[in-house]
C-alpha cells in the first residue's frame, strides 16, 4: 500500500446525507472479478444527470469528497471504496460514516476523516463559491485546509499509523501466527467444522420456469 502523509486536490461538495453504498456503486457493477477498473461505476445512477456535481467540469477531476452525514451506509461491498479510488478520490470527509465502509477504506488506503457537520457546511460553502478550489489534507497534522480555513479531522490512531506507513494488515497479523496456533489448540470440540460436509439427504431441485 502506498504511504499517505498529505494530499492536495480539488474538493467536491456532495450535499447529500445517507449516501449508501448502493448509490456509490450499484449492484450491477459488482459482477466484475477484478480489483480495479470501477471508475465508470462510481455514482453510476447519478452520473447520467448533467447537474450532478461530478459532471460539472470544475469538479470532474476532484480527489477530496466532502459529503453529508452517514456516508457509506448499507451493503459491505468494498467495491464502493475501489470505485472511489479508481475514480481518483484519495480522501472522503464527512461527519459520520458507516462502520464497514470506513473499515474497508482504511484497508485500501482511502482516508476517511471525521469533520464536524458545522465545518462540513463551511467547506461546502467555500467549494461552491469557488468551484475547483483545492483542499489540502494532512494526515500527519489531522487537518483539512481550504484557502484561509483550517479545520481538524478525526481518524483512528492505529489506522492513521498504518496509512502513513503503508502497511498491509495480513502481513502484520501473520507476525502473530504463533498466538493464532496456540489459540486454536484451546478451541472446544463442539465448535462446528464445515468439513467433512454433513447435510440432510440430497434431494432433486426442480428448476422453476418462466410463466407466460
Amino acid at each position, binding site marked *: 500500500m502506498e504511504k499517505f502523509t498529505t494530499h492536495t486536490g480539488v474538493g467536491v461538495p456532495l450535499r*447529500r446525507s445517507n449516501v449508501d453504498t448502493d448509490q456509490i456503486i450499484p449492484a450491477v457493477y459488482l459482477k466484475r472479478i477484478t480489483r480495479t477498473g470501477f471508475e465508470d461505476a462510481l455514482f453510476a445512477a447519478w452520473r447520467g444527470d448533467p447537474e450532478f456535481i461530478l459532471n460539472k467540469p470544475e469538479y470532474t477531476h476532484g480527489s477530496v469528497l466532502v459529503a*453529508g452525514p452517514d456516508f457509506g451506509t448499507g451493503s459491505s461491498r468494498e467495491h464502493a471504496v475501489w470505485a472511489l479510488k479508481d475514480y481518483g478520490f484519495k480522501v472522503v470527509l464527512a461527519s459520520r460514516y458507516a462502520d464497514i465502509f470506513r473499515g474497508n477504506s482504511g484497508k485500501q488506503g482511502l482516508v476517511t476523516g471525521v469533520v464536524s457537520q458545522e465545518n462540513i457546511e463551511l467547506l461546502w460553502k467555500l467549494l461552491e463559491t469557488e468551484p475547483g478550489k483545492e483542499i489540502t489534507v494532512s494526515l500527519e497534522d489531522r487537518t483539512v485546509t481550504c484557502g484561509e480555513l483550517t479545520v481538524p479531522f478525526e481518524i483512528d490512531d492505529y489506522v492513521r499509523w498504518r496509512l502513513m506507513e503503508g502497511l498491509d494488515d495480513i502481513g502484520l497479523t501473520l507476525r502473530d501466527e504463533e498466538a493464532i496456533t496456540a489459540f486454536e489448540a484451546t478451541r472446544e470440540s463442539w465448535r462446528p467444522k464445515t468439513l467433512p460436509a454433513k447435510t440432510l439427504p440430497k434431494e432433486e431441485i426442480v428448476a422453476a420456469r418462466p410463466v407466460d
Partner: protein
Amino acid sequence: MGTTLAEKLWANHLVKKGEGGAPDLIYIDLHMCHEVTSPQAFEGLRIAGRKVRRPDLTIATEDHNTPTLDIDLPIADETSRKQVDKLRENTNEFGVRIHSLGDADQGIVHVVGPQLGLTMPGMTVVCGDSHTSTHGAFGSLAFGIGTSEVEHVLATQTLPLKPFKTMAINVDGELPKGATAKDIILAIIAKIGTGGGAGYVLEYRGDAIRNLSMEGRMTICNMSIEAGARAGMIAPDETTFEYVKGRPHAPEGADWDAAVEFWKTLKTDDDAVFDTEVNLNAADLEPFITWGTNPGQGLPLSANVPSPEDFAEESDREAAKNALEYMGLTPGTPFRDITIDTVFLGSCTNGRIEDLRAAAAILQGRKKADNIRLLVVPGSARVRLQAEREGLDKIFLDFGGEWRNAGCSMCLGMNPDQLKPQERSASTSNRNFEGRQGKGGRTHLVSPLVAAATAVRGTLSSPDDLDDAPSALA
C-alpha cells in the same frame, strides 16, 4: 461489575490483546463466502502465495447473482456466469466446501448457515455481506466484512478489530396481532436512525424478543446493519438450543452437553452496564412500512405520507424531500391508498419457512389483485423443498403468484429479478435504497403479512384490511 454478552464473546475469541492503540486480534469460528465479495480476496491469496488457513471453518454458496428460473441451464448473463464460475474455481483450488446452484443446500448464505447447524451460540461468524448480523440471533458475534477482510480471514482465520460499543434494545410487552418481528425492527430503525447503531453491537432483550421464534429473531438481527450497527445479538435460550439440536452439524453426545453448558452462560450479567439503552414497548407496535429511500424512513401503515416540514433537522428535511421525489409520493396521502405493482416475498430477512407459511395462510383461497405481480423466492433450496412438502407452492401458484428457485433475487436485483423504472414494490427485504431493486424502482419495506395482504388488495394493506379475517390469525 458484570459484562455484557458481546463482551463475553469478545473475550472468548481474543487471540491477542492489542497494545498501544493497536486492535485486538479476534479468532473467527465460521467464515461464509459467496460469489460477489470473494473473487478479489482469493486472487489476493494467489498473488501472495498464501493458502486458506482453515478450509474446515469456511463454506461457500452461490446466491447473489443466481437466477431463480431455469437454474438447470447455463446462467444467461455472461458476467454473472463468470463470477459464479470463478467461485467454483476458487473453492476447488483452495479446498473450500461449496453448495452450488441446483444443490439441495444452495441458498442465501444467511439461510444456509443456520439450516445446516453451522451457526450456533457462542461463535464468531463473518461473511463478506453486511447481513451476516443475522447469525447474532443465536447468541453469536456475527458481522459483515469487506473483501480485504475476507482475504484476511481466509489467510489467518482472524481479524484485527477494535472493541465495539454495546447498546441494549429492550422490547417489552406483547406484540399485537398482525405485528411481526419485521415490524419490531423497522420501528427500531425508525426510532434510532440509520446511523443510530454506528460503532455498536445491539443486544435485543425483553419479553417480546424472548417470545419470538428463531426465525423471527433472525429477522430482527438481520436488519441491525440497517440501523448502522456492526452486529445484533440475542442471548441464547431453550428456543435456540431446540432449533440447533439435530441439525446436520449440531454437536452430538458429550459435545452437545458441553456446548449447552457453555451456551447457558452466554448472557449479559445483571449488573453489566451498556454504553446505551433504548426502550420500546411491543404493545404499541402495528404493521410498519417504509415510505422513503433509507430504512430509517418508516412509519406505521395507518399513517400518511409525511411532509419534509415534519422534520426538525435540515438534513432530514432535505433527505425527505429527495426521497419523496424519488418515490413519487405526495405528502398527506394515506399509505393504504398507495398502489403497488410488485410484491416480493423472500430475502435473508424474510425468506424462511415461517415467512412463507404466514403469507400463504393469508393468500390461501384468494386471488391476486389484477395490478399485482407476486414473486415468491424461498431463501434456500431446502426452504423450497419444505414449502412444497407443505403444499405452499400450490397456494402461491393458485393465488396467481410465481414460485421461484432460491437466492437473493429481487432484494438487490443482481440477477434478472428487477423492478423497472418507477415500478413500485412492497418487499419483505431489507433495503429501500434508490435503485436497489432495479434502476428507478421504488421500494416499500414490509412484513410478510403486509406483503400478502397487499398482494390481495393491490394497495399497501395489512391482514386486517381483508374482507374476512384470515384463518391463520383467528
